[in-house]
């Protein structure tokens, strides 16, 4: 087998060194009953060409974005990934290394993480960011847990209903076993599509732990994060901002600048393909004063024995391998290579490019909406939006199915997740959508109305 370097001679020599005759002698101590039933009933191994053929066939059974016009978003966004990002993450030195426990042999990874942490603080307007989380949803859940470590006496997490359903579900799961929490869902303002501030006001009180708000939210609407944070702070609670389309942070005010105490999100837009939902990368940023309550790994700057700048994992006493059941999180393996992709992507985009690309997304999405409105469709919410918006339609399921038949993935029916929004179609427009894509969108949605 091509992955296994052992020749018969090698095996014989090694067995001889061990003084045993057969490979199976080495597992003779494993209970015989277990060994007897251990055979793996899978097909025989395959050649590389056969493996490739099978995977190519499976991939061919998907109708990928490249072959369709797509306006799908809803938490994962289609963006152009520069070739350099792939060339960088493909480096075996990055891809086949472990968590950088030995910093002398991991300066590539540690420095890149340090740069990632810096970029995330710049984007979020907060002081410290960690080395990465699994994804935006679990980062949001960890943020709530972190808030509780900061304010251990408080219990109520006010989660906006305009947070993505997956994120809300994940928070629910993460908190489900911890009796000290009370999850309250803050309703949506039916007109704007933002969190209902009046309702939130009513939830605010001295048991309020935190607010959890999408920025932009699950309908693409740019929440009044400053107002929400102010309300949370007035109640003595923390404001958590959650971003699934981080490109928005290239143009929108930083969550930290608006008062968010913890900013988390999903970094997939930054150089990762949508690949059926993962891996992307979660990020989490907070105030420096609360760094010891943060989950996940952190890289810090230090020196080597000769005084040269160096980077290494630090503040590990928060972590599971040191603190065990009292750790700030159970996370161990995180999404380092995805954080590297984001770091490379953001370095390429840079100060101007990111803002411009964000601008292009805003432009295109607003152009698309204007075209749809001109064709007689109605905008579902009035709130300002970034690159994703919601329109109203009599029969989303039918029209979307019909559009798909014509190779247009025109959006996501909100009714899947919001029964009360059965008429809503969520449409994400990015720089990958051309003018003709917008026309096809219009034709399929308005035409079939």
């Amino acid at each position, binding site marked *: 087998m091509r*992955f*296994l*370097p052992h020749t018969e001679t090698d095996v014989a020599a*090694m067995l001889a060194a*061990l003084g045993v005759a057969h*490979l199976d002698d*080495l597992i003779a101590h494993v*209970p015989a*009953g*277990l060994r007897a*039933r251990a055979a*793996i009933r899978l097909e025989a191994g*395959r050649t*590389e060409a056969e493996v*490739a053929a099978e995977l190519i066939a499976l*991939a061919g*059974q*998907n109708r*990928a974005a490249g072959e369709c016009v797509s306006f799908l978003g809803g938490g*994962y966004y289609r963006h152009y990934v520069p070739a350099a990002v792939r060339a*960088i993450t493909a480096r075996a*030195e*990055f891809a086949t*290394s472990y968590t950088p426990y*030995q*910093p002398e042999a991991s300066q590539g990874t540690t420095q890149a993480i340090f*740069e990632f942490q810096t970029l995330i603080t*710049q984007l979020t307007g907060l002081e410290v*960011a960690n080395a990465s989380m699994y994804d*935006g*949803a679990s980062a949001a859940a960890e943020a709530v847990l972190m808030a509780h470590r900061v304010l251990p006496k408080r219990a109520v997490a006010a989660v906006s209903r305009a947070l993505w359903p*997956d994120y809300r579900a*994940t928070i629910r*799961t993460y908190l489900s076993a*911890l009796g000290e929490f009370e999850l309250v869902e803050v309703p949506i303002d039916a007109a704007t599509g933002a969190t209902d501030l009046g309702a939130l006001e009513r939830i605010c009180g001295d048991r309020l732990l935190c607010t959890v708000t999408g920025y932009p939210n699950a309908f693409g609407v740019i929440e009044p994060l400053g107002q929400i944070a102010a309300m949370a702070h007035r109640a003595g609670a923390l404001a958590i901002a959650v971003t699934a389309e981080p490109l928005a942070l290239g143009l929108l005010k930083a969550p930290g600048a608006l008062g968010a105490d913890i900013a988390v999100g999903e970094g997939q837009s930054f150089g990762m*393909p949508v690949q*059926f939902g993962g*891996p992307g990368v979660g990020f989490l940023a907070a105030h420096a004063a609360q760094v010891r309550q943060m989950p996940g790994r952190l890289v810090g700057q230090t020196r080597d024995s*000769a005084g*040269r700048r*160096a980077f290494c994992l630090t*503040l590990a006493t928060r972590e*599971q*391998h040191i603190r065990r*059941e009292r*750790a700030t*999180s*159970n996370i161990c393996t*995180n*999404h*380092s290579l995805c954080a*590297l992709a984001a770091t490379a992507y953001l*370095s390429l985009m*840079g*100060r101007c490019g*990111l*803002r411009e690309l964000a601008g*292009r997304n805003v432009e295109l999405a607003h152009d698309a909406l204007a075209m749809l409105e001109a064709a007689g469709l109605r905008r579902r919410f009035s709130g300002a939006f970034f690159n994703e918006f919601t329109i109203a339609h009599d029969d989303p399921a039918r029209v979307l199915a019909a559009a798909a038949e014509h190779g247009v993935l025109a959006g*996501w029916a909100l009714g899947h997740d919001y029964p009360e929004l059965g008429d809503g179609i969520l449409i994400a427009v990015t*720089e990958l959508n051309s003018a003709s894509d917008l026309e096809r969108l219009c034709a399929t949605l308005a035409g079939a109305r």
Partner: protein
Amino acid sequence: MTEAKKLTPAGAPKTPIASPDSAAVALIFEESAPGRRGIDLRGGAASAERAAAILGADLCRDDLEGFPEVSEPQALRHFLRLSQLNFGQAMQFYPLGSCTMKYNPVLNDEMAALPGFATLHPLTPTAMAQGALELMVRLEAALAEISGMDAVSLQPAAGAQGELAGLLMIRAWEARRGGVRRKVIIPDTAHGTNPASCALAGFEVVVAKSNRRGYLEAREIQRLLNDDTAALMVTNPNTMGIFEPEIEEIAAALHTRGALLYLDGANLNALLGVAKPGDMGADIVHINLHKTFSTPHGGGGPGAGPVAVKRHLEPFLPTPRIVRRDGAWDFNSDRPDSIGRLRSFYGNFGMLVRAYAYIIAMGGDGLAEASRLAILGAAYVRKRLAERYPSASAAPAMHECVLTHDLEQRTGVTTLDIAKRLLDFGFHPPTIYFPLVVPGALMIEPTETESRETLDRFIAAMEQIYDEAIADPATVKRAPRTLRLGRIDEVTAARRPILRWEKSG
């Protein structure tokens, strides 16, 4: 590129370059200059302006203060040079215990990048994503067969998230049976994620002591078991590299008392075709695809931590599940008993593609061979090093071995020193100081994809380091000396944390 020097454009440099250090890499922020760009966007500036007008000044930030501004060649060079400062399994022997740093077939990265996988949006109508779903179904089935379990969820993003899923399922199962058991027993050799996950799942940890040979005795479990015991969470082979010999008895004891057996499958690379967790009596196993199933570790992820259960726990698996509906695969979230979801969408699909490719490449027999050869390698290293580095346990090793040594008492040379000195020989060190129960532990996991010659060279290096430590301890204590940097000061890093670059420097 050394850190940028200030040069007046027309004059000679004020200070000479310090000693040549051609491998140093500046921070990307330090390589920036206003106006440089690594990407072009037609009409980008106009777009940004128009967008700011559309949204209004209230919503928009002025600038991305401090953000990098570099050209494409600079960005590429920066990260390629950074990569050159890393060790990786592809280039170096990387016997990091508990991490299964086996070869990651390069084909699998190409397969994950196929447009049919990479550009498939997770909200694509399932009718148009049948290939992806089919792959996931087949991977679930393969993992169930390999682990001897009945049902698998591919959702967890890593081992620790698999643990959380498993423990929440235990809770849910308890709840449905009306009980509220609060305790999970964990051996003293356990990986840190186990107690941390227990805490997150609302359980109290009860520590079981392994015996002198490094494994759990059934009577220790019997001693700790009571009606408040929800489960035992155990790694097998455990982090001493030892197959838990009384695991079946322990499982029976647990089940008799209404408790469950959670098997941490991080060490599954020892068990392929050797013993199935399901046969041991495990009710739940999580599996690290980034270990046994060869997906690259990426400097710390992304991985994937599928969780497998026996039939009675199936209703509690995370949502959504893949089901057959009208002759096609579809997602089903309508599962009232489920613990819910742990993340967005369906799992780290890109990793699932790689693991599936690996499994069909190996085949059932190939996997069984892999475990045997992994065990052979560990036994061989252990035996060959026994004189200088005795094994922490007398029990037979499985795919990894935990060694210790007397150098600290004899010469002051620590396990950390040995680890750093190994770097000079071109080897990544083993896991050190773990498991916690072994003083100065060196936990060595050679894996099956390393040749005998490599093991021999590693053994020779370990021997030489031992002898050096006796003859000339300073050399070992000053290691590494052949890498770009010398020993890195981790203490200062923690004492005065600098966690991001700032403009002032």
